[in-house]
């Protein structure tokens, strides 16, 4: 695992440890969502859509000098915050890293519930899509 990839995850875990209350954690998630580069409504394309049953996510992937760069948006700001977490970890990594390496921070910060396997709006689906995008450049 690349140092930076691990560091980024550990730093998220650390950030989350500060808060006891779930509301505070979610405030942080929401703030993260506000910080990332979104995709404005006009620019959203159908093929970018990860359609969930609760909220929708648009995901754009590019490669820049062997490094992946994602941007994303969602109609729900918590969903956008969650994908921001992924983007913060994945952006700047090589496609190989993204395809191969494990995201352990999710379990540690207690977001497993977003890992619901049955519906497409979960983290799992986003991670899957991001890996698929990365795979194109491997």
């Amino acid at each position: 695992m690349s140092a930076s990839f691990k560091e980024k995850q550990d730093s998220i875990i650390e950030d989350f440890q500060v808060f006891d209350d779930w509301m505070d954690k979610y405030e942080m998630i929401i703030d993260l969502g506000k910080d990332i580069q979104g995709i404005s409504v006009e620019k959203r394309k159908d093929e970018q859509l990860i359609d969930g049953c609760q909220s929708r996510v648009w995901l754009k992937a590019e490669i820049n000098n062997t490094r992946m760069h994602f941007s994303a948006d969602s109609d729900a700001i918590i969903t956008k915050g969650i994908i921001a977490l992924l983007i913060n970890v994945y952006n700047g990594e090589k496609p190989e890293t993204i395809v191969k390496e494990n995201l352990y921070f999710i379990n540690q910060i207690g977001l497993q519930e977003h890992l619901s396997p049955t519906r497409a709006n979960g983290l799992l689906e986003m991670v899957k899509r991001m890996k698929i995008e990365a795979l194109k450049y491997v």
Partner: protein
Amino acid sequence: MNQTPDYIEGIRSHFPLLKTKVHDKPLVYFDNAATTQKPQKVIDRINAYYSTENSNIHRGVHHLSQIATKDYEDARIRIKNYIGASKENEIVFTKGTTDGINLIASSLGELMTKGDEVLISAMEHHSNIVPWQLLAERKGIVLKIIPIHQDGTLDMLSFEEMLNDKTKLVSITHISNTLGTINPIETIIDRAHKVGAKVLIDGAQSIQHGQINVTKLNCDFFVFSGHKIFGPTGIGILYGKESILETMPPYQGGGDMIKRVSFEKTSFNEIPFKFEAGTPNIIGGIALGSALEFLESIDTNQAFAYEKELLKYAEEALLQIANLKIYGTSALKTSLVSFNVGNIHPFDIGTLLDKQGIAVRTGHHCTQPLMDFYGIPGTIRASFSIYNSKEEVNKFIHALKRAINVLS
């Protein structure tokens, strides 16, 4: 005034799950339109059944089989009485509301021909839409949609205009699971019968909010799910008038629904068994009976009245919140409220309510066409049951305000 009355506390004490904590907060369960909690009596009945009488039913010569058969058939009688049907052969056990509607669409549907019309409304649950779309494809029947007004009430004028002698069935929800609207089904049944159409009432929501009497209603079919009336999952009821059920071909084939099988010619059992192929959900039926027994043991009139009070109380508090819009503002409404706040996505609010121990449902509530009508992706829905209290509504409103704060 806001103190929970003793009779509600009394009812509440029967439901062990309500003592659960969620994210370290006492649970406020406002997702009763999706499924209700189970009284201890139902849980104990399941336990006792599996521990002392579990057996396959009908046809069994041995003792356990005879007891289990009797208990299952006694449950059928209790259900018959609870909904005011006149004969127990009018009570068909199904898997749930969805299964019941599919049974009708498939079996009664066999008797329909190209050009026959089925009417549903714009506020139906997917379970009362898709089976008819599938039938339309299979049989060429025409599916027509009764429009609704902005307040979430049926456009009865249009309804009357749509009725004609090609109308074979009106299939309509008694109460909207998204809006809470109580539909004027008495009028609908009356008008439909005048043109010779049959009427199927989707009672998934109404069964838990008041006393149903299918004989007085004079509906031809009435369907509901056990899990929405304090009973288990995997069981439901289709009530059908004897004279109609008897004309309908079987649905599924298998054990129990036959009279005599040979490779040359198979004849079918009497109703209701004709529609009950295979080993049924025996304990499901028995425990649904226990749920009704529980309801018979409490003062439901008082409880249903308090539910209505809760709705008013909650709506008043909600309307104090800026930019909050309630969907479904019919004067005749059951105890659930659907809303959105400004442009905040329902999922965001639902998530933050959950983190504060409040269970509501968000999304399209399996009524996408209704969402399209209002031009929204979904709503937040708080739905109450006989064990909920104003104190819980207060907690909900408080948590909602906090969520809105975080999200704004």
